[in-house]
């Protein structure tokens, strides 16, 4: 088990600046997820940690030891690949045992370790098969088995679930998380899927264009995003963004939208933004914080508005209604059985306690 420290890491592909000055400290035993859109540099970062790619400048240290110049085999790491990268001409047993054999482990030890790993992943009945005889989920387990059998100090996962269908992915997510709980190793996991990130990570590192946009515990990033990008990336359906202006409203502040709808800010928040009156902002509010207004619900901070529902999307557990507000399409989350008709006028309540105010130019959350 080891900690990882990356300082001022830069990587270039020719003239393309793929990784732009990353500083990252991951304590031992933590499950860290590198998440971001395609091309943000997360896979590149992972591969430099593995030693599969050279770095331009900066240092990578595992357990205090600088590993910049070490080839992959000397870094004591294990990796699970997106396309499994299993050896097609060997049995499952040989695949898992390959790394142990390469390090001249005695045969009895190999036998016990492979059996233990296989049992942990419920593939011990497949040890005699060849990769071409296995399904996607089984292949992924074998790939994971190959990684854990060597008891390395750092585990790297490069989008391992991308090639699986949705149901299998759900299953494997839980398996990997359980694995981490059992083994307690330091694990770095790359994905573009924010659900994977949210459900599996101890810490999320959200990357964008080669830089770290924000890092922290999943719920921290979810509830207290630093930028509009982070706010819009996590959460499905995504957060709604509506241009607005902070205006005086009675004794406090309100947000005036393009269609002149006024949404009052609750008192505590109004106090914080008192000096920002007349400023243009972007209002960010998640679908789960917009619901049908219920009579008698007098919680402070609920702003009411009426809207025509344009689109209704029931998912079974809840229903999403799309309506127009402030000139934008906004999604609200309604109860599962609350399926309004299209064009039906609905009273909505927006929880302004949870809404975000974002600077339109810098896109930072105020």
């Amino acid at each position, binding site marked *: 088990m080891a900690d990882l420290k990356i300082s001022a890491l830069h990587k270039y592909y020719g003239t393309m600046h793929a990784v732009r000055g990353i500083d990252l400290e991951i304590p031992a035993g933590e499950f860290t997820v590198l998440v971001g859109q395609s091309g943000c540099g997360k896979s590149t970062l992972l591969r430099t940690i593995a030693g599969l790619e050279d770095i331009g400048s900066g240092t990578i240290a595992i357990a205090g030891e600088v590993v910049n110049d070490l080839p992959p*085999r000397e870094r004591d790491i294990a990796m699970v690949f997106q*396309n499994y*990268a299993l*050896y097609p*001409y060997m049995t499952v047993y040989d695949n898992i045992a*390959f*790394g142990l054999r*390469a390090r001249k482990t005695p045969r009895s030890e190999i036998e016990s370790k492979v059996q233990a790993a296989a049992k942990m992943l419920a593939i011990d009945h497949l040890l005699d098969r060849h990769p071409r005889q296995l399904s996607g989920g089984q292949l992924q387990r074998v790939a994971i088995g*190959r990684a854990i059998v060597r008891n390395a100090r750092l585990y790297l996962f490069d989008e391992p679930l991308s090639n699986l269908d949705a149901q299998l992915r759900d299953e494997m997510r839980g398996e990997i998380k359980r694995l981490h709980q059992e083994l307690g190793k330091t694990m770095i996991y790359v994905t573009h899927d924010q659900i994977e990130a949210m459900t599996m990570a101890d810490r999320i590192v959200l990357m964008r264009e080669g830089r770290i946009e924000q890092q922290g515990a999943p719920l921290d990033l979810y509830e207290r995003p630093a930028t509009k990008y982070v706010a819009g990336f996590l959460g499905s359906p995504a957060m709604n963004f509506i241009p607005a202006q902070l205006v005086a409203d009675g004794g406090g502040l309100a947000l005036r939208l393009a269609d002149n709808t006024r949404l009052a800010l609750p008192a505590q928040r109004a106090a914080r933004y008192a000096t920002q009156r007349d400023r243009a902002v972007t209002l960010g509010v998640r679908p789960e914080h917009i619901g049908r207004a219920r009579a008698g619900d007098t919680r402070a901070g609920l702003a009411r508005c009426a809207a025509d529902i344009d689109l209704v999307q029931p998912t079974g557990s809840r229903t999403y209604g799309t309506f127009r507000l402030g000139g934008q399409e906004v999604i609200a989350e309604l109860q599962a059985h609350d399926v309004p008709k299209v064009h039906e006028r609905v009273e909505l309540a927006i929880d302004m306690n949870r809404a975000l105010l974002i600077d339109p130019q810098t896109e930072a959350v105020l």
Partner: protein
Amino acid sequence: MTRDRQFQTTLIAPSIFVLLLIGVFPLVYLLVVSFQGITMTANDTSFHGLRNFAQLMQDTRAWESLLHTLVFTGVALPLELVLGLLMAQLFIDHLPGRPVFVALLVLPVVVSPIVSGATWSLMFDNRFGPINQVIGWLAGREVTLLWTIQPNLVYPAILVAEVWQWTPFMFLLLLAALSAVDKSQLEAAAIDGAGYWRTFFRIVLPAIWPVMAVAILIRGLDLFRLFDIVWALTKGGPGTTTETLSIFTYVKGFQQFETSYTAAVALLIIFALSVAVTLALRRVQLSR
């Protein structure tokens, strides 16, 4: 459906006709004539039983030519394979201008084997060829090695010409096969801790084996039929030292006009090759 049948027949009929004419007739002829007694002097078409075949079994010259052929095959094929593999390894990682190198290295393959033999005759010429000149520089004195005449030099000379011409063939095929190896498997092996040789033998070699097998099959067949290069360099000489099976057959048929005997030889060659190829194909599974 019958219209489709007609269509199919029209498509394949001309090809099959030509193939039958040039392909089947000779076989039938060989079959018939090999059991007869036609020689240069006698036109004896009576049934001679297996006499020609028995004679062939006793013919030392025939067996020697087979030996020569096997020697050429046994030496050239592994050499070409290993050299081709080494060359492919040299080129497999990124190299500036690789397409140019490959295009140039392929030229020996497309030259006619006769021209290849003629070229190396030039190179090996005892007075005017650069080979002797360079050896002379290295040895410090004049050398006049008679590469195409001295019995202990003719084999190296022929092998040099043959390996020169066909190593690029192996190189080209193996380079393509190496390029197709899944890179993530190599990366996984690197992370697992496998060294160069373990990775090569356990992962790379099994992955390129299908292509290697085809290459060996094609070259092996061609080497067994070796004629042009040897003819251009030594004509099978001196005497019959470098006479391959094909040259032996040619001499028997077109210089000595031993028709029936030649037919027996030809038939056996076809039979032996068919058996060998069928066995090999069964293992390699060529027809998709």
